[in-house]
């Protein structure tokens, strides 16, 4: 029996599970994404307890367990805290490699904002300043920010 399998190409069935979902982005998330779409503006919110300015904003602070009510306008600019340059390709990527994923500390925010950086990658390093570039056609989606580019 065990030899038999070595001598043939075993059958492999191909399949795909396709399940549509709809994710409510919630009240706070909606305000954030609508602001990207309508005003090309990045907004965050501040916990009244620990004063952390979150982006994307949250309804509650996970550390303090407090409802967050204080909205903050953030700059479309910030500095790179961490990055990696992606050298491989696969179909879910938003753009052709090489491009970078970065945690960007937007001016006025306290947490890193994950997004992509396109172009000029040899100038990319920690602390470098970057600026958001908004998409022409915006739909209320995280990719209404097309990406960040080095200032």
């Amino acid at each position, binding site marked *: 029996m065990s030899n038999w399998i070595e001598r043939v190409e075993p059958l492999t069935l191909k399949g795909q599970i396709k399940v549509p*979902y709809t994710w409510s982005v919630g009240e706070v998330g909606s305000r954030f994404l609508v602001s990207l779409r309508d005003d090309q503006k990045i907004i965050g919110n501040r916990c009244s307890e620990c004063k952390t300015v979150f982006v994307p904003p949250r309804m509650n602070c996970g550390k303090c367990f407090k409802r967050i009510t204080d909205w903050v306008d953030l700059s479309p600019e910030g500095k790179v805290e*961490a990055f*990696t340059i992606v050298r491989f390709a696969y179909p*879910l990527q938003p753009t052709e490699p090489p491009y970078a994923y970065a945690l960007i500390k937007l001016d006025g925010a306290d947490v890193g904002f994950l997004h992509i950086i396109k172009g000029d990658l040899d100038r990319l390093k920690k602390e470098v300043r970057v600026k958001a570039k908004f998409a022409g056609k915006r739909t209320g989606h*995280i990719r209404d920010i097309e990406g960040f580019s080095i200032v």
Partner: protein
Amino acid sequence: MERIAIVGVGQTKYERRKKGEIFYDLVYEVTVKAMEDAGFTLNDIDNVITISNDFWDGRTISCMAVQEAAGAHDKNVSTVEGDGTFGAFYGAMRVLGGFGTTLVVAHSKGSEGDPRFITNGMFDPIYHRPLGIEVLSASALQANVYMEKYGVTEEQFAQVSVKNHGNARKNPLAQLPMNITVEDVMRSRKIADPLKLLDCSPISDGAAAIIIANEERARKAHKKPVWIKGIAHCSEAYFLGDRDLADPIALKEAAKKAYAMAGIRDPLKEIDVVELYDAFSYMEPLWLEGLGFCGPGEGGRMIEKKISTMEGSLPVNPSGGVLSAHPVLAAGLARIIEGVLQIRGEAGEHQIDGVKTALAQGINGPCGQSHCIWIMGRDQ
């Protein structure tokens, strides 16, 4: 804590692609091996836990599909999604909760899905997933933060890969035994900076099982019980931007709790061998820091001093580790099993002399968001 022990273990060989066996067959294989190892029959198994994940298996409620193969017919069975160490933690609690024995089994066939699509799915669907981020790029981001913060180097990471693939040559179950140099790692294909192909664990198929027993039942097993001295897990923030990726606080907390439970004051002196979750080479030095074997930023130097080699004072992953075989959900359970084999003196060619106490680690979530720590001992 009441005394509980691991009394039986079983592993498949880990391979790039299992052609002849489906999940069910892999689970059956390790269940039989673990029972034979313990000298138990199905009648001796009171409770069963299976570990899997729908995304990896490509079928919904995938754990449910293997419970007969795990001997759970007519038995109490629970299913856990995530790394095997967390499922084993739950298994230990079931024994403490009154079951005499619990079989814990994990399976994974990386060859049957696309790990980039699957791991993209673990990210938040609103803000992160649409950016295409998956486990390789997220881990590379963490490696870069670690290098920037402490000046740890790519060459130090490469040394981990050289060491662990070299250790794998002594482990017949490992998938990627390799005799490579730091230069080979440095010259291998760039994946996402700073990670190269040889810094990354392979796609693997395999399964692993353990049997946990209370003291009374442990005494009836064939093999000398390996006692569970301390177990703990801890989790931190989910969004990568909310975390300091070079400071594994969840690991520190989990280690602190596990050490306290096991009565360990000086881990470097009291632990004889470590099996950790090195899905990428940079993880070994970073996790060594989190485990308190050295201070923050000293992990790279620890690698350079060869402390974690098989001949060093703290051998790490003598089995070859996750870098040499990465059956995703079974990989943590395999770390526990390697700890058991070391304590029993049954690790064969990769045996470390005189192991009394072993540490095993599992992770879950992006960039080690959660960690599960196991301290196991030869003596009660």
